[in-house]
């Protein structure tokens, strides 16, 4: 049985882990594969340079690089551009929403603003999230960019593995049981 399963993709890694856990040191934790090179040298094909630079700056305000990677390391703006350049025929509404969002961003002065002004602008555009009574003409653009940036970030290796430490999609010898006695009472 072990030989048969070891011949499957990933099977050898599973059995190596299994055997090591039963007889040797503790489970070392899953090892996620590297990210493919798709976005590493990607050149924007949907946005012009001005819009792309503005979008990239916006995504880095939303998900900054701090003690863990942010939108820059995850290539969020590149990923959004990559999806949109493939959406022209299949998802025209999405494409239109993005054109409108970038126009709203330009209208709000984001493209030409310095870093401090951009930060202030994002704060103003986002206020309705925390205060339903607040309004801003750029709120829809903020929500669209945030929604796509969040997806781009937490589905990237930087977001999923480095920031959140996702443990699944791996070969494990056992399922980790809750070992907290305090969780057994309400």
């Amino acid at each position, binding site marked *: *049985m072990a030989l048969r*399963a070891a011949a*499957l*993709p*990933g099977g050898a890694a*599973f059995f190596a882990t299994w055997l090591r856990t039963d007889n040797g040191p503790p489970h070392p934790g*899953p090892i*996620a*594969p590297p*990210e*493919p090179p*798709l976005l590493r040298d990607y050149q924007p094909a949907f946005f012009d340079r001005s819009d792309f630079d503005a979008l990239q700056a916006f995504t880095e*305000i*939303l*998900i*900054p690089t*701090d003690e*863990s990677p*942010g939108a820059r390391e995850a290539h969020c703006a590149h*990923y959004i551009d*990559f*999806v949109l350049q*493939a959406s022209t*025929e*299949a*998802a025209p509404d*999405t494409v239109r929403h993005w054109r409108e969002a970038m126009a709203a961003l330009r209208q709000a002065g984001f493209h030409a603003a310095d870093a401090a002004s951009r930060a202030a602008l994002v704060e103003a555009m*986002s206020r309705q*999230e*925390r205060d339903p009574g607040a309004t801003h003409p750029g709120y829809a653009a903020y929500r669209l960019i*945030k*929604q796509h940036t969040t*997806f*781009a970030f*937490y*589905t*990237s*290796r930087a977001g*999923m593995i480095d*920031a*959140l*430490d*996702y*443990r*699944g*999609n*791996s*070969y*494990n*010898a*056992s*399922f*980790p*049981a*809750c070992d*907290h006695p305090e*969780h*057994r*009472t*309400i």
Partner: protein
Amino acid sequence: MPTAHDAIVVGSGACGGWAAMELTQAGLKVLMLEAGARVDPATDFHHTFLYQMDYRGRGRPGLLRRYSGSERNYRIMLDNLENPYTTSPETTYSWGRSRCLGGRTLHWARATDRMADYEFKAASRDGYGMDWAVSYADLAPYYDRIESFIGVSGERLGLPQFPDGPFLPPMALNCAETIFTAACQSLGWSSTHRRLAQLTRVHNGRPPCHYCGNCVNGCEVGAMFNPIAVTLPPALKTGNLEIRTDSVVARVRMNRENRAQGVTYIERHTMRSVDVDARYVILAASTLENTRLLLLSEKGGLANSSGTLGQYMMDQVSGGGVSGILPRLKGGPSRLDDGKSAGITIPNFQNIDRKTERKDFIRGYVMNATGGQTEYPQFAAAFPGYGSAWKREIKSRYVAQARVWIAGGEMLARKENFVELDPEVKDHWGIPVLKIHFTHSANDHKLIADFQQRAEELFRRAGGEVMAGSPDARAPGQTTRPLGGSIHEVGTARMSVSPKDGVLNSFGQTHDIPNLYVFGGNAFPSTGDKHPTLTMMALSARGCDHLLETAKGRKV
């Protein structure tokens, strides 16, 4: 003229796979016809992280309008353009289907629960509908046989409404499930590990689960039950099974003695029509496809002397649920919480006897709960804020996610929910498609409203905090409208003691045509509240025994 095959089995899912194994092991020559493609887990299934796919699981824009599922598993789903169906204007039903060797068991939820007599005999208790033509005692030996062979992990509870089986050890509970278990105890509700056809130790030569959480994308080691890992290999080993994939069955052909002569199928790619004959024909192509084939095979429907063919379509009702976080788990370490893709089960505790009878609705439901880390933090985009503080809050809540959902809610059988052939629309092969008429009753809505209250009660007792943006976030007491299904469609050729009341007898044999059997959910006179696959398989196994007995006695 002698035929090359003793039996034709149409479909290769849970029921077709079992039938092929049992009949070939008894010495019958079986031809299995599968409409979809051959699937090889060694080459077709593997772990893939979202970031390894160009479109992160969503597929190239537009792709998944054609296919069900995700970028990872659409190949084991179905091409919706080639396989359309239609609905009446008031119908919102969504028919979840697969066409491939192994069928829906390649990506199923693996929940493997026995039904109980309070479900089989519900009509006698509350006066609605029709009792099953079998009892728990009739099916118990088949439940035993199937569970022993396929391997089901679980915990023995001793509850009459949730019968036990010869279980493998249960999977461990994660932190959220442990808290929900304590909450159930506090409310006086029974709960247990979700019972799953997923191995926790080596079983019949198959390796145990490695807790990757990838079950819906196909299991590459065969740790979860599906025919390509479990029932088809021993069937092939007998030398008595021939499998033809990409073979779209169009109808059952009859002879002059009112016996099924064989079937006609169309080669999926060449469009060539092929006739094959056998002594027995077994339809195991999934519930609604089985009924479609009967409707296609004779004007007014084959084996339809009762006039009930197509009627009483059901699917366990869904809607509502609660999700958010368990604040006690906030900020905790990352753990492999979704590796078993499971949870806890809270068996039905209402309308199971006179003492638990409800005045406002009949029948019942089973709940599930789980929590912890998931592959993608679905709540994050809706969570207010941005910046480093937002990132820290997302990570803190990511490990504390929690959810209560309905595992199975009984939907009442009603004659006005039915399927028929669409008079105009045909599929890719020119075969008329099904038109579905399907709405929910007032009782279905009351049952879901009650579930919603109980789910919120459990969530509150566990200390849960509903969170905007979570999959089931909604105002207290609010349920989904319109209600949904559970991809547990059953009925449309129900079993009956009398041929006047249904299409099938308790062995899955059509009342009208002795050598024509129908295996799947067709026979169900009611949905019950358990996941249906195990009971479909038990009925199939019992039907196979019956078929083999008749074959020996040459009654056909």
